[in-house]
């Protein structure tokens, strides 16, 4: 069971795993990413190694929790938050806490153990995006939840422990701090100019054309002017859109194409880097319809975060985004 605790100074929340007896492990630079296909809980034939599936895209006639699936969503076996229980908020003195209620799901992107996301066909990646959308729409029905974060960790340096292609969804009873900061910033900008800050950024980026990596009919990928990390890349829908899960299928197909291309370019330019990506979308039941704009933030894990960054929240980026975009544009891909 876990507990949510709020830092009294900054208001930052932490999920604390309250399990007893977790000994201090002198961790952890795990070198090998997890297990081979014979023991992999995500491979077909091993459906019994995961909790029962929540969602799957299956070939006609195959039964749940057996083979024959293309994309499969299961509860995380070691969830950071529990879906059962009531949300209770308590305080003692200056300290606030809340029961660790939420959802933690794993999206198994392919039955194939070795194929990585950038190797998928556009149709296969589209199925993954459709799964994100379906799960995110379904979790809107749980009134305890305020936010669904979809994210992906690839490679040990980015925190992944299994190599079989997968992403995760964590739904939270609180709008997370980073998202709230973006919502506040977008609202502040809108109050001043009556325009969406993301739409303005896109317009300026497309005009200047210094930091664009690639684009298609409905999406743009670029390295933000204020990139925190080398080769940080954002993908935005070109027209104003608040909710990721409201994206129609024909646009998801464009996204699938562009995401695949960006991942291929990163792989070619950086020699298979570890990376994280996350989808930032409006909170469930957000009233901010004009100000916020959903997007994907993609961060290759190339540099180490050290004391200065932890102490200040101030990042040092050794690669100007103009150069990163140029290198990614020139990367040789098929």
């Amino acid at each position: 069971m876990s507990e949510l605790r709020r830092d009294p100074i900054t208001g930052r929340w932490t999920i604390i795993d309250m399990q007893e007896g977790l000994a201090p492990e002198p961790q952890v630079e795990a070198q090998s990413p997890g297990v081979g296909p014979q023991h992999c809980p995500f491979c077909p034939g091993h459906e019994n190694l995961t909790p029962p599936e929540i969602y799957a895209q299956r070939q006609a006639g195959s039964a749940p929790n057996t083979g024959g699936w293309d994309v499969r969503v299961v509860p995380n076996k070691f969830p950071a938050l529990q879906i059962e229980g009531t949300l209770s908020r308590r305080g003692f003195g200056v300290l606030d806490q809340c029961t660790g209620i939420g959802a933690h799901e794993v999206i198994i992107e392919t039955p194939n153990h070795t194929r990585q996301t950038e190797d998928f066909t556009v149709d296969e990646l589209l199925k993954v995006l459709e799964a994100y959308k379906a799960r995110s729409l379904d979790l809107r029905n749980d009134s305890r939840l305020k936010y669904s974060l979809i994210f992906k960790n690839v490679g040990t340096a980015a925190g992944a422990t299994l190599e079989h292609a997968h992403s995760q969804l964590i739904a939270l009873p609180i709008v997370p701090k980073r998202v709230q900061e973006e919502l506040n910033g977008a609202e502040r900008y809108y109050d001043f100019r009556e325009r969406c800050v993301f739409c303005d950024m896109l317009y300026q980026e497309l005009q200047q054309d210094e930091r664009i990596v690639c684009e298609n009919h409905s999406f743009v990928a670029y390295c933000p002017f204020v990139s925190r990390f080398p080769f940080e890349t954002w993908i935005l829908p070109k027209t104003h859109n608040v909710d990721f899960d409201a994206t129609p299928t024909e646009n998801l197909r464009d996204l699938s194409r562009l995401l695949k291309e960006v991942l291929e370019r990163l792989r070619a330019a950086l020699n298979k880097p570890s990376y994280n990506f996350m989808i930032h979308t409006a909170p469930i039941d957000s009233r901010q319809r004009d100000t916020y704009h959903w997007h994907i933030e993609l961060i290759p894990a190339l540099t180490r975060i050290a004391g200065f960054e932890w102490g200040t929240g101030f990042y040092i980026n050794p690669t100007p985004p103009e150069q990163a975009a140029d290198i990614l544009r020139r990367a040789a891909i098929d």
Partner: protein
Amino acid sequence: MPELRKDPLTRRWVIIATERANRPLDFSASQPAPQPAADCPFCEGREGDTRKEIYAVRAKAGSAANSGGWQVRVIPSLNPVLRVEGNLNRRAEGMYDVMDGVGAHEMIIECPHHENNLAELSIEQIAAVLTTATTRMEDLSKDQRFRYVLWFKNHGSIAGAGRIAHARSQLIATPITPKLVKEELIGARRYYEEKDRCLLCDLIRQEQEGGSRIVLESREMIALSPFAARFPFEVWILPKVHSCDFQKASPAVLVDMAGVLKGVLLRLKSVLDNPSYNIVLHTAPFRHQRERLGHWKTLEDDFHWHLELIPRLARVAGFEWGSGFYINPTPPEQTANYLRNANV
């Protein structure tokens, strides 16, 4: 010249290196081998291998600058992320805000002999390091271009230390108050507005009553694992008597603090098998242009300086980056319990 760029969305500033930019091949996954002790440029007798010292505590009276005989030595950083020369040159680039990367970046060499871990130095030596930090911070606070100086330490390769295995910490003075510090300042002020008391003074009293998260306590200082610790074995060290400026700490407080810091580091070393760690100091920003910079009149009463110590055990992954939420697998009560019972 490095550039400071401001995110129009979150108002976060980022330092972008524009000169010696890293190309893809520079990001090698493998760790560079540590430099052999015989080649260490930070050892006594190798003063000629570094840039000229900015300051030194000289143990041997009369020893000349940039020669042996020092106890603690401060030099400009070998790879400065900000440049000390020039003006800020604030400007707009379309909708974006930019200024020149002006600031100071100094290295505090913490001992003359070849030792890598601050924990192994004597209390007297650690006190000299802390005193040196206060002296340099006081001096940097006179520069009207700077608003904040961060004292921090990276120990071990996972925590971002380089190839040289010699104890050191760093100072970076910035022309803006960093985001995390600002968040703490705002949180502390909000509490003070409501209660007319310092939040961290209240927190210390509450933790002392409960006791379950306290690691150790001395006459002047308290070390505890915070209630909402982001990381396993995160420890904060705070002065028990209210003070907003670390650089105003008395010699007695600094000596006492050196003992507590050494105690906590030795306990971490024993429980976690010599972990990599970061230390960061959060203190009040410079107030030389108080009115103009919009600091509030209660800052001295509402903010409470403290040291945050983070062993680097867990990797930060997509969830943390995307949400700003942390997942901590070790409850702080357990952390405190392990550290209290450590063999030292």
